[in-house]
């Protein structure tokens, strides 16, 4: 990136709220059902149907607002956002325009060991649209198919201030927001399933300039990686355009995962005028301070509190604590492990290195994984009591991760237990000394290095299974006889 430009990023995040039913009707929100089996006249947009607001949806939004340090105004209302698209059966989306449920707020991100506070502008409730499926080749097929199962699923759109200055900060914001939503229990945040989606507003400006540059909005960012890459691409593209004397056009772009580039979605018909007006079919909401207090008193532990607990109770470094508190499942794994094996730093090291590596390699979440925290704790105990070497433990761990088997069983099956039996080791050591009398002489004449040679031989012959502590002790004894 050219040095003279500064990047300005704001994110709009849509989170599906974890309700059993849709926003304005009692249809189920379960993901993955047969097309058009979770629909009714309300969410299919039949004329004359009346929406009735889901109480849980409102409570989850208030909970989010508390977790994001937002103000929950006493009155909020719903509005119609009008546009035509086949996945939107009413030809308007029920949303919130000028009186959203959450106003202001912030969250703190960590980038390169520095903490930075990112402001939140607002969060508002709205309903999701249906799903459009393009049949066959998208460029040639004249038709699309519409599935309305998702139509009317409750969403909370969380809008940040344009306060991020790099793709990494944007990713850190997204990760932090996700962890807060997960801890607060308001959304599943499954990016692959679309229950957490992100649009990035990106602009660049010469360093020192006060006004923002012209921004573009990039959609279709359904993983942390594509968010980061799309922003990096967009920044490069805008800087190159400006340096070539071109003007940046304010437009909507989409991220093409295959080509790894953003592409304009502009059409000549584009006429963005949503003609918002108050939704006459829904009454406004009056949110009493008592209601907020009741929700606040039932808040689960949030990442910021969990992180403080890890640092204060277990003396973990901030860095470790930040990573372990990225998801409640991850923290739960740690907590369970630590209740059995009490060296927090060792548990944290194994989670951040071995466990994370395998999760990333297999593109898995900790909740999909068969490994149980009690089994990791047990493995760590086996290392401590010398039953297995640290190096072998890594192999055992991989097998535990794959099969979910107990560590003792894997060690037994693979014959990986360390040999600590003195008689067995003595006969092994004596045999090696007998075959290397010259080296023994060297050692006795003061050549320290020879000791290492014997250790190496013993490890080789025992295939690494001789208990190193016992070998050291016995070898010294046998060599001095």
């Amino acid at each position, binding site marked *: 990136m050219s040095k003279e430009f500064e990047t300005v990023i704001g994110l709009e995040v849509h989170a599906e709220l974890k*309700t*059993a*039913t849709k926003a304005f*009707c*009692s*249809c*189920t929100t379960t993901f993955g059902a*047969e*097309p*058009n*089996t*979770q*629909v*009714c*006249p309300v*969410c*299919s947009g039949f004329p004359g149907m009346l929406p*009735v*607001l*889901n*109480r*849980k*949806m*409102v409570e989850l939004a208030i909970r989010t607002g508390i977790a994001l340090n937002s103000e929950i105004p006493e*009155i909020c*209302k719903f509005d119609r956002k*009008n546009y*035509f*698209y*086949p996945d939107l059966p009413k030809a308007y989306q029920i949303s919130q325009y000028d*009186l959203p449920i959450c106003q202001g707020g912030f969250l703190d991100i960590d980038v390169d060991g520095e903490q930075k506070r990112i402001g939140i502008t607002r969060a508002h409730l709205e309903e999701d649209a249906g799903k459009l*499926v*393009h*049949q066959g080749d*998208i460029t040639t*097929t*004249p*038709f*699309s*198919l*519409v*599935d*309305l199962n998702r139509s009317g699923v409750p969403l909370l759109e969380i809008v940040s201030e344009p306060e991020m200055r790099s793709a990494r900060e944007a990713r850190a914001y997204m990760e932090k927001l996700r962890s807060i939503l997960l801890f607060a229990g308001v959304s599943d945040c499954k990016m692959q399933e679309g229950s957490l989606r992100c649009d990035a507003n990106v602009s660049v400006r010469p360093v020192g300039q006060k006004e923002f540059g012209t921004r573009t909005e990039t959609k279709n960012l359904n993983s942390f990686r594509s968010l980061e890459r799309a922003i990096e691409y967009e920044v490069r593209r805008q800087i190159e355009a400006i340096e070539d004397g071109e003007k940046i056009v304010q437009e909507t772009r989409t991220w093409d995962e295959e080509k790894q580039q953003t592409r304009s*979605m502009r059409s000549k*018909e584009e*006429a963005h*005028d949503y*003609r918002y007006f*108050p939704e*006459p079919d*829904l*009454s*406004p*909401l*009056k949110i009493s301070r008592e209601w907020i207090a009741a929700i606040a008193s039932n808040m689960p532990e949030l990442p910021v509190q969990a992180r403080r607990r890890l640092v204060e109770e277990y003396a973990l470094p901030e860095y470790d604590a930040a990573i372990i508190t990225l998801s409640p499942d991850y923290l739960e794994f740690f907590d369970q492990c630590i209740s059995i094996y009490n060296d927090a730093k060792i548990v944290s090291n194994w989670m951040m290195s071995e466990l994370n590596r395998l999760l990333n390699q297999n593109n898995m979440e900790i909740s999909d994984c068969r490994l149980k925290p009690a089994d990791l704790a047990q493995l760590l105990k086996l290392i401590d009591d010398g039953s297995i070497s640290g190096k072998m433990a890594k192999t055992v761990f991989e097998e535990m991760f794959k099969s979910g088997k107990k560590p003792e069983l894997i060690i037994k099956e693979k014959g990986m237990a360390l040999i600590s039996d003195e008689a067995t080791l003595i006969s092994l050591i004596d045999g090696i000394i007998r075959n290397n009398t010259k080296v023994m002489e060297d050692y006795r004449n003061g050549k320290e290095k020879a000791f290492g040679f014997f250790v190496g031989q013993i490890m080789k012959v025992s295939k690494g299974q001789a208990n190193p502590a016992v070998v050291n002790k016995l070898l010294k004894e046998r060599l001095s006889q």
Partner: protein
Amino acid sequence: MALTIKEVEHVALLARLELNADEKQTFAEQMGTILDYANRLNELDTDGIEPLSHILPVFNVLRDDEVKPGSPREEILSNAPLLEDQQYKVPKII
């Protein structure tokens, strides 16, 4: 005061309506009359009056989050002009 033809064309585009020249002329006049009528509200002094967000003094009409069966798929899809694989079939829009 009548709307300009350009304004009528803009509104027609937003509403995805195709109007011929006669219709544009008719609607320019009719919509102008409607707006003039609504404009009379601007003659009222509304200083210090809270904007109204709902016509009735009702708040918090809420429903419990309990699943009820939706409609049978055949019934819901029975009005669709075109169907394929149990889904509405529509012209492609990208």
